């Protein structure tokens, strides 16, 4: 199976500039620097690459919204605020192949005519940031970054910016607020960051995995990327596999790979030979899938959507038949209640009340009518807020309650 992200991930010396270069690193950047910026954007459009942070928006199209000659600087921000429960792929990429990210960011920056870019890394990953900083220092020393990128008349500065513990800052406008030195309150869109983002200038926010796909795309061409995967989901995807499986880890598979094969092969099957009960395929914010729904589903955006869930970030959490679904939902609801930024009332109140009701339920003090109350709260939250955090709570609440309703009823009196 073709790989573009994890090719050298198991080589301990891959983090050094010398070894990265020896294995063909920064050749894609050299190639890109000989191209016109708009030609690179076109190549990315042709590739069909979609944002790997969770939303799946076409990357080339996102770039094309940036006005050229706006008279303002354009900024590229790498979203490395990885915090969606179940997701740990970006950490792997940065910790074991940091130059791949630097190369991807340099290619994107050149294509966007951007001269100042930041990697927004969650503060908890400071030890990962230190590895990336060392790679940045090496890249500066080698002339890959700085006043003249690889000898070309093109300047690029790249810095790390640390978050400080706020899931919401993974939402791109919240990330921008945080980068500007404020509380991470998401902004109302429009204007979209492409037009008015960091310091009211055109800004592109791309995920680590999206950016690390670029060297491969430039080397092999957009068409080669588009030939991988399915009709609408191109390329490969990293899945962070965790929960009740024998071999947790980060795996790269071509889009369209069978979900059950992924569980049985890559994940090494369900832990202790237990029976599969459910899968959360794209991070805790996507609808849960029953074992039956997993049967004939493929790992790509459209197939998972058709099966009633979303590919999201590829945070693939497996639940075996020993799992209590009410307890699991309560754990997830606590997360969103804690991480709601409090700006919008439906989210601040809704996530809080949902978490309280579920806690009451798992303590054996729930009523059957609480199940419908939770569903009503979900209706009052969905689509009524500035950012998608409320929806991220609604999707698990609704799917757990409808697909595993009897388990909730069994816990409730009356």
């Amino acid at each position, binding site marked *: 199976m073709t790989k573009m992200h994890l090719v050298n991930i198991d080589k301990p010396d891959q983090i050094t500039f010398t070894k990265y270069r020896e294995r063909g690193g920064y050749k894609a950047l050299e190639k890109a620097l000989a191209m016109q910026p708009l030609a690179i954007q076109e190549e990315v459009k042709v590739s069909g690459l979609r944002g790997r942070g969770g939303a799946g928006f076409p990357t080339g199209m996102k770039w094309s919204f940036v006005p050229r000659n706006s008279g303002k*600087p354009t900024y590229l921000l790498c979203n490395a605020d*990885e*915090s*969606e*429960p*179940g*997701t*740990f792929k*970006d*950490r792997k990429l940065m910790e074991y192949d940091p130059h791949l990210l630097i190369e991807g960011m340099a290619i994107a920056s050149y294509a966007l005519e951007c001269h*100042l870019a930041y990697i927004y890394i*969650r*503060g*908890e*990953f*400071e*030890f990962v940031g230190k590895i990336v900083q060392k790679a940045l220092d090496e890249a500066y020393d080698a002339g890959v970054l700085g006043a003249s990128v690889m000898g070309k008349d093109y300047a690029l*500065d790249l*810095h790390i*910016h*640390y*978050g*400080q*513990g*706020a*899931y919401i800052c993974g939402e791109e406008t919240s990330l921008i607020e*945080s*980068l*500007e*030195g*404020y*509380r*991470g309150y998401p902004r109302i869109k429009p204007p979209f960051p492409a037009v008015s983002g960091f*310091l009211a200038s055109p800004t592109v926010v791309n995920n680590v995995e999206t950016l690390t796909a670029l060297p491969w795309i430039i080397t092999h061409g957009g068409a080669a990327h588009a030939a991988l995967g399915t009709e609408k989901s191109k390329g490969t995807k990293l899945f*962070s*596999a*965790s*929960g*009740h499986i024998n071999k*947790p*880890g*980060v795996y790269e598979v071509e889009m369209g790979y069978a979900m059950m094969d992924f569980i049985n092969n890559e994940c090494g099957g369900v832990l202790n030979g237990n029976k599969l009960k459910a899968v*959360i395929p794209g991070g*805790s914010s996507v609808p849960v899938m029953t074992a039956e729904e997993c049967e004939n589903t493929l790992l790509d955006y459209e197939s998972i959507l058709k099966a009633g869930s979303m590919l999201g970030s590829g*945070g693939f*959490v497996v*639940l075996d038949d020993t*799992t209590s679904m009410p307890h*699991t939902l309560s*754990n*997830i609801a*606590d*997360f969103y209640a*804690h*991480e709601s*930024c409090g700006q919008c009332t439906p989210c601040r109140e809704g996530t809080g009340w949902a978490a309280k009701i579920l806690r009451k339920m798992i303590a054996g003090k729930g009523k059957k009518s609480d199940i419908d109350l939770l569903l009503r709260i979900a209706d009052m939250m969905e689509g009524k807020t500035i950012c998608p955090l409320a929806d991220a709570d609604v999707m698990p609440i609704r799917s757990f309650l409808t697909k595993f309703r009897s388990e909730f009823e069994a816990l409730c009196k009356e």
Partner: protein
Amino acid sequence: MSDIKFSDDAMKRYDQTLKRYPEKRAALIQILILAQKEFGWISEEVADYVGGLMGYSPADVMSVASFYTMLHRKPVGKYHLDICRTLSCWLLGTYPCVDEMKRILGVDKEEITGDGMFSWNFTECLGSCGTAPTMQVNDRFFESLKPEKMGDIIEQLRSEAAEGKK
């Protein structure tokens, strides 16, 4: 706490940090990180000092600091143990590890041990679900935790402290 002032080394890093941004304000959170490394936590005095240095009111600085859970607004132990309670860590046994940690340390969350060495709290997803349960201690992670490993980790930290490492 009257001697709230950056050391020469911190002042140098303050200047370097500001240079990385087109506008000073963008550096605020990074400066608060620096301040926490210097002073241990973000007290009102620290917010006052950072605000004075950068030209923002203490209330403005505190409103930012209070948004971010990693910026402590009360003292923590020399080693602050943040243990992940979210989905995958929970599925694979965070709570038995927490029970053992509490038993060893003898303090509840957000309390500090008598010797000032340890404090602990729950945290949300640390982005390390493949090696669950995970715990962050200052600037490093301890992964694939088990109740029987908690005592060893705490001992390891104690001996590091005795050797003068941080």
